[in-house]
C-alpha cells in the first residue's frame, strides 16, 4: 500500500464560538488517486473536516498530515501547492476583470513563471470549457460558468488534491453532471478528489469511497456500493440512499456488489436473475 496523501489522526476541532466539538476524534487516511465523497446532514462536520486538509483550520487536538506536511506547521498559502479547495459559492472568490486574470491569480501567488501561467491557463480553460471566454468579465458569466471558473482557477495551481465543497449547489442536473464528469476526468488523470455533497445520486454515480459524518464523528467509511446498503445507519444520519440502491436491495436482497450500481447494471442483474428463474 502506498503512503496516504492525507492522514488524519484523532482530529478534534472546536470553534471559538461553540461549546461542542464540530469534529470529534476523527481518524482516516486517503490514498493518492482516490475519489471520496464526504456526506452527512448540515452541521455534521463535513466542511470543518475538509478545511483541515489545506490548513484553513488547525486542529484543537490531533494531527493532520497532507503530502507529508503536518498542517499545523504550514500556512494555507503554502499548502495550496498541494491542495486545491473550491468553495461552495464561486462568487466568494471571483474578483478579477477577466477570466484570464482570475485563473492566473493563484499560479502568480505560487510564483509560476509567465510562460508556465500561460500554459496552465490555456490547459484549464480548455478542460473546463472556458476557451474563448478569456477576456470575458467573470461576474457576467452564468452561475454554472462561474462555478467552472472557480474550479479552473484552483486547478491552475496544479494541486494533486482537489477538494470541492458542495459542487452542485445552485446548479441544475445537467450542469451538475457536467461538473462531476470533469471531476471524474481529473480523478482519472491522477488527482485525488474529495467532494462534500448532499446529492446522493451524484455520489452513487461518481464517488468510489464514501465517508458518512454524523454528530462530528465518522459513522461509516467504505466503498460506495457497500455504504449505501447500511440503511439503518444512513437513516440515523438523516441520509436517504439513492433509490437505485433501495430497489436493488428489495429485488435482489443479499447480492454482493463489487462496484457502485448504475441503472444499466441493475437492469443486467435483473435480466440475469429472471433468466436464472426461467
Amino acid at each position, binding site marked *: 500500500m502506498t503512503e496516504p496523501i492525507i492522514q488524519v489522526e484523532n482530529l478534534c476541532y472546536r*470553534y*471559538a*464560538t461553540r461549546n461542542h466539538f464540530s469534529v470529534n476524534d476523527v481518524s482516516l487516511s486517503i490514498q493518492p488517486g482516490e475519489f471520496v465523497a464526504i456526506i452527512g446532514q448540515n452541521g455534521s462536520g463535513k466542511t470543518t473536516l475538509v*478545511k483541515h486538509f*489545506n490548513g*484553513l483550520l488547525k486542529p484543537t487536538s490531533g494531527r493532520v498530515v497532507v503530502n507529508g506536511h503536518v498542517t499545523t506547521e504550514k*500556512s*494555507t*498559502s*503554502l499548502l*495550496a*501547492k498541494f*491542495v*486545491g*479547495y473550491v*468553495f461552495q*459559492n464561486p*462568487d*466568494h*472568490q*471571483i*474578483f*478579477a476583470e477577466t477570466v484570464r486574470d482570475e485563473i492566473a*491569480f*493563484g499560479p502568480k*501567488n*505560487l510564483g509560476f513563471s509567465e510562460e508556465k501561467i500561460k500554459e496552465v491557463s490555456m490547459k484549464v480553460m480548455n478542460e473546463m470549457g472556458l476557451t474563448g471566454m478569456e477576456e470575458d468579465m467573470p*461576474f457576467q458569466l452564468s452561475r454554472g460558468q462561474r462555478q467552472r471558473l472557480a474550479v479552473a*482557477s*484552483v486547478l491552475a*495551481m496544479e494541486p494533486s488534491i482537489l477538494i470541492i465543497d458542495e459542487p452542485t449547489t445552485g446548479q441544475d442536473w445537467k450542469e451538475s453532471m457536467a461538473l462531476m464528469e470533469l471531476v471524474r476526468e481529473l480523478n482519472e488523470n491522477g488527482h485525488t478528489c474529495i467532494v462534500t455533497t448532499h446529492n446522493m445520486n451524484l455520489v452513487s454515480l461518481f464517488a468510489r469511497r464514501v465517508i458518512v459524518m454524523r454528530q462530528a464523528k465518522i459513522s461509516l467509511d467504505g466503498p460506495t456500493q457497500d455504504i449505501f446498503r447500511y440503511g439503518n445507519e444512513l437513516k440515523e444520519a438523516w441520509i436517504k440512499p439513492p433509490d437505485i440502491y433501495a430497489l436493488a436491495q428489495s429485488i435482489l436482497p443479499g447480492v454482493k456488489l463489487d462496484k457502485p450500481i448504475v441503472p444499466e447494471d441493475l437492469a443486467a442483474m435483473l435480466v440475469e436473475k429472471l433468466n436464472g428463474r426461467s
Partner: protein
Amino acid sequence: MAFVLQMLEMGKRKSWFHRLNPNAKLLWWICLLIVPILVTNPLILLAMTVWIWFMAIGARIGKQMYQFLIVTYPVMIGFIVITWPFFYAATPEQHFLFNWSVFHFSLEGLIYAVAMGMRIVMALTACTFFVMTTDLMDLASSLGEFMQNRLRISYMYPLMVISSFKFLPELSGDYITILDAFKSRALDMDSGSFLDRLKKIVPVAIPLIDSMLRRAQNIAIALELKAFNTANKSRTFYKEHHFGASDFFFVFTGILAIILCVIFNLFKLGKVEIFL
C-alpha cells in the same frame, strides 16, 4: 473577527441581566459612561469597575469578558499610562522621576496617568458588559418600537439600524469565507510590507462588496414582496418590550452611580487632584 461573533453570541444567553429590557441596559450604559467624565479619582473608578465585574459573574459572562478584556485592557491603557506622564504639564514643585528636555516623568504625572487609564478601564468594562448581555437585534428592535410608538418616527429609520445589526454577523461570516477562499489560492495575507498587505485586501474586498450589494438587493426585494410600508400604519412588533420593575431598578443603579459621583465631587473626593 471570530471574537466579535462570540461577543455578539454572548448577548443571546439567559440570565437576569440578559432578560432585562435592552433600552434599560442602554440607559444604564449611558449613565456608566457619564461616571468617568464626572470623576477622576482612580479608587472610585476602580470600585465601579469591580461592581461591573461582579455583575458580569452574575450574568455568567465573566470568563468570556475576561478573555476579551485581558487583551484589550493593556492595549487601551498601556499607551496612555506610558505616554501621559511625558506630556503632563511639568511644574517645578513636582516629584520628578525622570526629567530631560521635553520629557518629564513625575510621580504626579504617573498618578494622573493611572487615573486616566482607570477612566478607560471603567468605560471599557461597562461597554463590554453591555454588549455581552444585550442581543443587538433585540436592542435594535426595542429602539425601533420606542422610536415609533413614543417619538412617532417612521419605522423605516429604525429598520436601517436593525438591518445593519443583522448584516454585521452575516458580513463577518462572509468575510471569513472569502478570506479562506483567497488563502486557498495561495494569497499570503501575513507577509510583505504594509503597502503589499493593503494591495492584497483589494481581491478580498471586491467579492465582499459584491456580497453586500446582493444581500441589500435581496432584502429590498423581500421587503417589497411582504408589502413593507404600504399600509401607512404603525406596525406591531412580534416581541413587545415593556419596562418592568427590574428594568427601572437596573436603570436606577446607573443613576445612583451618577448621584454618588456628584456627591463625591461636592465633598471634593471625586477628582484625582486629592492625591497630588
